[in-house]
């Protein structure tokens, strides 16, 4: 079973992601802050990470940069998640995030899109 690490500070959103991914056959691990996310990454060696941009202490960008700089993290796919207020934000965010992470999800989630991105990054698409 593939393991997914969810780094998200809002407990409800974290629960939704965990439950939805679990229902689709993934094992999930949750972290609620940037430093905790990095710690979990080292301990649990997930196959994929979902990282929220707005995180306490260390934001999502910093977390991604940190993980991508580690040997183990180079090959771990990461999806960044962020609330956007309009299309304009989205386009600039996509550029900003595209250079860092492997994909980008805007909140509120479209669960179908989330699942297809996860599957694609894990190489499960037919």
């Amino acid at each position: 079973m593939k393991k997914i690490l969810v780094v998200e500070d809002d407990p409800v959103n974290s629960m939704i992601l965990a439950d939805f991914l679990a229902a689709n056959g993934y094992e999930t691990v949750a972290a609620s802050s940037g430093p905790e996310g990095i710690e979990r990454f080292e301990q649990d060696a997930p196959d994929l990470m979902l990282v929220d941009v707005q995180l306490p202490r260390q934001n999502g960008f910093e977390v991604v940069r940190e993980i991508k700089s580690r040997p183990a993290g180079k090959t771990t796919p990461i999806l960044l998640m962020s609330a956007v207020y309009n299309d304009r934000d989205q386009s600039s965010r996509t550029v900003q995030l595209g250079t860092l992470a492997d994909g980008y999800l805007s909140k509120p989630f479209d669960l179908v899109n989330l699942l297809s991105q996860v599957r694609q990054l894990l190489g499960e698409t037919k």
Partner: protein
Amino acid sequence: MPGFVAEMAAPANRPKLWFGVWSGFAITVGFAALAVAAALFDLTPWRWAFLWLVSVKLLTNSLAWLGLARDRWVMETQSINTIADVGLLTAAIYFTGGPYSPLLSTYVIIIAVLSLLTNLGVTILMAGFIVLSFSTMLILMTTGVLPPTPIPGSPGQIPSIGYVLTAIAFCALVVGVPAFFSAATLRLLRTKESEIEKRTALLISAATQRSQFVASMTHELRTPIHGVQGLADVIAAGVYGPVTDKQKDACAAIKRSAQSLLALVDDVLQLTRAEAGKIDARPGPVKIAELVERVSESVSYMVGTKKLTLETKVEKDLLPITSDERWLAHILVNLIANAVKFTPEGGRVTVSASVSGNDLVLCVEDTGIGIAEEDRERIFEPFRQGEKGDERGYGGVGLGLALVAKLVELLGARVELESEVGKGSTFRVLVPTSWKGRRTATLVVPPRVPTAELTRFDPNS
């Protein structure tokens, strides 16, 4: 009275006028002392010149002082005083040797003081008047109308000690007094300027703090709404066990409610940005048919369970226009949301696009309650709805149309409104097909909070 003279009466210029009056009195006192000196040294023409200067200057300057003190006939008395200065000086110049008078330099002093204390118009006007009065004097002297005056200390004569001392005192007076008062005036103005700068900086930071506060509040508001939506989604997807059709419908309803709440929160943020002057336009090619289709799809949730017909009519073969697609979409979404809100069940909302002249016409027509004549202006103000809307208890805080008005301005477009109470309303947005908008807009809305409250606002308290 010419505008540039009337402008000098403004409250901001009052200190300058006062300085003019006080320096006038100081100079008059100086002239009186010089008249006494001239009498002692037996300089007859100078004595007459100074007595003449003292008496008339005292009169006109007192008039100007009265005008300012009573705040009546301010510019009239000021004008008389200034014109009298030039006339008096010309007369004094005549008495002290006409074109050879050492007082001639005082003309320059008058212009220098005027240029510091007044504006360009007044300075040029008085320079013209100086040339006019000086040449009049010369013409009167050369034609013999005015007899020539003796010149004390003219070439070939050794000037008396009395003459030299009087001339030096005169020079010190006409240079020193205006220099002192002008410097004092400028210092006063600079103090005012820095006060204004401080106040402006304070206001700007208050406005920035306010919009930052709203921005972070908006984020905090959105997060739980995302939670509501996400939970409705996972429940409906059967993540927590099998769901009945009825439960699926309920989940869809929860999601719709959350979406409309989200849309409202977004409006608040957009408007805050617009108020902070932060919205910018990125013109590019816009395919209208695609835009209208995309927008009407994305607003279908607004109709929800309400029995409304939402239809689109786009003229065939519309060429792409150059405008900002995102803001156009936003304008349409807001207008449609508005139409849906104020149209009762069984009604119809029609979205259409066509070209008329150099404009693309986006039209949102509804069969709703309509907008009364007297409400048509104010519905575009933030936080307002028509009176009828308030009475009948339609929801919403009235932000949508305020945002539309701002965006329309940014895009260089116009919005027209036709409406009949009880029958419906038609909003027509005329967008120039080639870009005529602005790149960034500093769309400043007068704060709804009194300034005093704004400056006291502290988001950390």
